[in-house]
Every structure is written in C-alpha cells, then in structure tokens.
C-alpha cells in the first residue's frame, strides 16, 4: 500500500509521482518481474514448438543433437552462470556504496557475455560451413532424416532469440557502467542495477533450459 509521508524530504532520484524511494524501488522491481513473466511466455511458444516436434520426430532430435558441440555448450553454460554471479556481486557492491566494485563486476559480466557470444559465433559458423542453414536453405546430408531442417530451425530460433537477449543485456550493462562512472548509484538508489540483474538472471535461466534440451539429449 502506498505510504504517505508528504513532509519527508525526498531524495533527488525519486521521481515526482512517487511518494518515496521505497515505493519507487518496489514499483520498478515489480514491473521487471512482470516483464520477465512476459519473456517466459515469449520463449514458452518456442518450447512448445520444441515439444510438439520432438514428440513427432523423437529419433530426429536424437540424431541431430549429435551435431551440436556438447563441450562448447557446457563451457557456455559455465560462462553464463559465472556472469550471473558477477551481476549479483555488482548489485551487492552498489548496496555497499562500492563504486569501483560495481564497475568492475559489471565489466566482468560484460566480458563473460561477450565470451558467450563469441563461442556461439563459432558454433554457428561451423554449422554454416557444413551447410546446416535454417529452413529451406538447409543443405547438409549428414543426418539421415528428411525432416532434419526442422530441428535446426528450432535450434536457430531458440538460440538466436536467446542471443539477441544476451546482446540487449550487454547494451544495458554498458549503460549501467556509464551511469555508475557518473556516480549515479549508491546504497539509496541502485534500482537500474537491480532490475538489469533480474533480467540477466532470466537470460541465464533460459540458457540453462536450452542447453540440456538441445545439446544433452543424445
């Protein structure tokens, strides 16, 4: 419930339509959580397509999954989990007023995210070299199944959309670093760090589902 304390002096960071800092923080956090729900439903559609086609062509999934590189997939999983840790540490630093820690942790998170994308890039180009393109452009004959293109369409859609989310996350964290260097964040106000962290955890969790579903089923 909205608490009214009209005579309490507000901090600079509190927008005019909020009563106090707490209300603003709680609102932002709740907004982000709801947004994450929409993200889950967004990916939910893809997971559903995955399930439908897997129940139709179970053997295809087993065969095609062989062609995904489990080792690099696992490395990427570790990388992303690590980045979730560092983003959590960034929030902690902000709460403790540690400007330097905040910036360093954000920078490490960005670096890990970039590593993830680089590995993904090599995975993609390797497949393209083999002729494993999405949809009608599929031109690989190493998989003895005439619907092999479907698996890779789903693979590209899922990992591609996830990759876009990683890129957005990188963008957000660069923006956070810029603001952190200007000293915008402190123990009283670190809302953007907190909600970007929430977003980043979701990106991480989605990968944690994608990895076993795509790479580990063989």
């Amino acid at each position, binding site marked *: 419930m909205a608490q*009214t304390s*009209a005579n309490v002096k507000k901090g600079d960071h509190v927008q005019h*339509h909020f*009563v106090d800092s707490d209300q603003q923080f709680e609102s932002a956090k709740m907004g982000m959580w709801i*947004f994450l729900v929409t993200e889950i*439903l*967004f990916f939910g559609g893809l997971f559903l397509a995955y399930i439908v*086609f897997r129940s139709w062509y179970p053997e295809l999934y087993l065969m095609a999954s062989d062609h995904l590189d489990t080792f690099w997939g696992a490395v990427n999983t570790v990388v992303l989990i690590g980045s979730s840790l560092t983003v959590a540490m960034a929030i902690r630093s902000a709460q403790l007023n540690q400007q330097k820690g905040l910036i360093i942790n954000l920078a490490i998170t960005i670096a890990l995210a970039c590593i993830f994308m680089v590995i993904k890039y090599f995975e993609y180009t390797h497949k393209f070299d083999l002729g494993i393109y999405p949809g009608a452009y599929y031109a690989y004959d190493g998989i003895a199944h005439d619907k092999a293109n479907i698996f890779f369409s789903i693979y590209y859609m899922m990992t591609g959309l996830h990759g876009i989310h990683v890129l957005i996350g990188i963008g957000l964290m660069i923006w956070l670093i810029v603001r952190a260097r200007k000293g915008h964040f402190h123990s009283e106000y670190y809302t953007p760090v907190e909600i970007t962290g929430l977003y980043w955890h979701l990106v991480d969790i989605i990968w944690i589902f994608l990895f076993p579903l795509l790479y580990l089923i063989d």
Partner: protein
Amino acid sequence: MATSETSNIKRLQVRRFKPEENPKSTYLTEETGIWAWMTTVDHKKIGLMYLASILFFFFVGGTLALLLRTELLTPAQSFITADTYNQIFTLHGAIMVFFFLVPSVPAALGNFVLPLQLGCKDVAFPRVNLLSYYIYVIGAVFTLIAIFTGGVDTGWTFYTPYSATTGGNVMMMTLGVFILGFSSILTGVNFIVTIHRLRSPGQTWNKISLFLWSLYATSIIQILATPVLAITLLLLTMERALHIGIFDPALGGDPVLYQHFFWFYSHPAVYIMIVPGFGIVSEIISTFSRKHIFGYWAIALSSLAIAFIGFLVWGHHMFTAGQSSLANMVFSFLTFLVGIPTGIKIFNWVATMYKGSIDMKTPMLYIMAFLFLFMIGGFTGIMLGSLAVDIHLHDTYYVVAHFHYVMMGGMVMAFLGGLHYWWPKMFGKMYNEFWARIACVVIFIGFNLTFLPQFVMGSMGMPRRYFNYLEQFQGYHQASTYGSYILGIGFLIIAAYLLHSLLRGKKAPPNPWGSRAMEWQTSSPPSLHNYEHTPVVINGPYDYHKPMSEFQLGIEGSHNGHGEHQHTETKTVEADK
C-alpha cells in the same frame, strides 16, 4: 474536517478539498506546443494522443468497411476486384482489432482515467508509457508500409500455409503487429504496477473502482497472451523469410500448430477487447442509477474469472480444423463455462439499476445499447461453442455477425459510452446532449440493420470472406449495406458535435454527473498533477448513500509535493484577475 482512520497504522489529518470550478491552469494549458506534447510523460496527454490515433484508425477501418459493404450490394462484381476485396477485408480486420479495439479503452481512456481514479500523479512508469505510444506508432508505420508495398490478403488471422506463400507484403504487416504487441505489453505492465503500488492512502482493494478491476484483469491477459502472439508472428515472419518450416507441411511442419498458437493469443485477446468495456459499464450504470453497485465483488472477481477461463477455450476456433474429438469436447465445454462469469456481470448490472433513479443521459444510453447487443453477441457465441452447431456455422456470416455484436455492439458501445462519460473531464467541455442521443439511436438502428441480417444469411449458408454470392442472399446483403451507411451517418454526427464541443462547447463543471467516483473530485480538466492535494479515500467509489464531502478529502496542508501550484489557497485572488 474530521480526522479519520485510513489504515491500520496511520492516523491522517484530513480536510475537504472542493474541486475548483474554474481552474486557471490545467494539463491542457501547461506544457503546450508540439514538442512538449510529443515528449510529454503526462498520462493524460499520452491518453489523448492514443485517443487521436485510435480514432484515426477507426475512421480508416470504417471507411474500408463501407467499401466492402458497397461491393456486396450486388451478387456479382460491382466495382472492386476479388484481390482488392481480399486486401480490404484483411486491412479492415487487422486495423480494427490491433490498432483500434485492443488499445481503445486501456491505452486511450484507461491511460487518462486510471491515475485519476487512484489519486496518484501518474502511472508508475511514465516514460515507459510514452515509449509504448511510440512503439504503437512504429507498428502503425510498418503496417502502412505493408499496405503500400503490395498489401496483405490473408485475413487478420494470417493463417498458414496461405500466409507463408501468398504474394504481397505479409512480412511487413506481421512485423507491424509484432511491434504493436510490445506496446500492449508495456501498457499492461504499467497498469498492474500502478494499481498495486500507487493507490491513495486509505484506498484498499475493495475501494478501487470496477473500471480499475477490469483494467487489472485486462492487463493480466495482455501480459500473458501478447508474448505468445509475438512469438507466433515472429515464427510466421521467419517462415516467410527463411522458410523455417515450423508451420509449413511441405517442410514437415504443421499449419494447425499455427492456429493453436494464434488462438492461444487471440481468444484471450477478445477479452482484452471486451473486459475494459465491462469496467466502463459498471462505472456508468452506477453513476446514472445513483446507486451503489450491486455485487461489487461478484463483478470484480468475474473479470478475473473471465481472464482465467479465457485462456482455456482457444480450441473453439478449430472445431473444423482437425482437432481430436476429445479436444473438441473439452474446448466446447470450457467455452460454455465462460458464459457464467459473463452472465453474473449482466445480472449484477441489471440489479444495480433496479429501483435506482435512472438518468438516461448519453453515456447511459450507450450502455443500454451495450447490454442489449452484447447479450445477443454472447448468446450466439455460446451457440457457436456447441460442436454440432458450429460445424454448420463455422466460417459463415453467422460468425461475422457474432463477433460484430460483441466487438462493435459490445466494446464499441462501451467505448462510446466511456468517451461521452469522460469527455467533460478530458476537455472541460460539454457536448450537445440532444444530438448525442440522436446519434446513439441512429447507431443502434444502423448497427442492427447491418448485422442482424448476417445471422440469417449465415445460418442459411452464406460463407464469410467472399466478394460474390448467390442471388438468394441479395436482399440480406443489401439490408446490411444500407445499415452500414446509417452507421456511418451516426458516426459523422458524433464527429460533428464533438468537434463543436471542443471549439464552442459549454464549460463543464468538475462533476457534471454527480458521481462519487474519484476522478470527478478534481477540476475539469484536471491540473497537470491531477490533484492539488494528496487524496485520502474512506469510501468506495459507488457509495451514493454517503455525502459528497466525504469523497473530497485530502491530507491537510499538503500540496501534493508540488509547492508551485497552490490554487486551493490563492483561488479567490486569482479569480479576481
């Protein structure tokens, strides 16, 4: 004024703040100029920007509809080709659904009214609100590009495999709707958070208006369903761009899966299109019956029930698409269930009017039209939900008539009711009551003349989406077309007197309808920050048995955190100038 207990922990010093009759500064007189409007984060201005946009699209969609109806005057081709006809009905449907009806009440009227009814200064995320408007504009631009670069002839449902193979610029259109979806999602997020976090002191969940409850239920549907539409349209776009094959049987995919995806959004979306209307009905019926709403919790919770059940019935659009008969039976049964919460609402509204002192002003007149037309729409929906009947009626004009009775007879009537209800609050001007009533009657007659014959010819077998037809249907089609012209005249009358009201309308008092609801307890139009004080709520918005003074309380001595606007104190001085 007395001190009152407003929550279990706090005692607040309150006094009465009478809304100002002649506000010197309002949100319309401050921060003017094109640039200030385009960059505004004020929910009221954003609401008006949405209002202007959806009215524009309503005009475009309506004009297209008149073209379609004119073509159908004769059984053979009259003046447009079959291909053009297909493109026009696609555009008509897509524009009316995605660009007019979905944002009509939430984004336009809701944006304006929601913070006023909560007694807060703005929605929780004002900048996100502005962003959502621009996303809407970008989506619209994509759609316009699609129209001028080949057009789209798939129908608003974009069914595969046709949509994946036909010519024209389907991709632009689906991308446009995809983008638009984010605008809808952001509005939903914003509203939910605002209702949770920004209520006035004392405004507990049982003291928020039923319009807010309906927006809350709508927002839940928006955030849960719209992302699924987004991924569906993205997959369809990829289908066209890369032939990914998920929906394409030639590549091993499944077109019925597309229908499942699409209706998993679009059936809940029909509730996005009607539930906010329910909220308006509750507001107007209570205000113009001068009576406490009957069954507050029944109405509030039935909105949530509809939102919930609405997610479980999408299969009723696919009874003939090769679903298993078990699935058909389950979906048919669940479809019937939706009728229950809907019926609960109707009974409560009628019970509210019982022994009330009913004032048939224009908004109330529209709500009477709503009750009548929406009931026909709802009952025919139940008929379509029964399996054997639907096999006969599916894809006929009967379905067309059904959804026009709910969408236009229901939601558009509620929207018009709401527009007339809040118009004085939005612009501080009254409209001509006489002409407004005339227009309402004209629209009611025109509507029925247009769509009643469609039930008949539909049940006789006239299929939808055809531009030629057998001669036996000509009488019905002609009646329908003439009806649509009458409808058009009705809307022109509205446009005329609303324009007149804007330019020369009589000044509106703060509370022209004598309502107890909160948005009426501030000046018309409201000031930039809605209230000059922090409102305190001790009664529900429908407590007509309590004196008006109890609805205008605010925290003693506060200026709503904005010291520079002190009209309450300096009122007499400024009025003298």
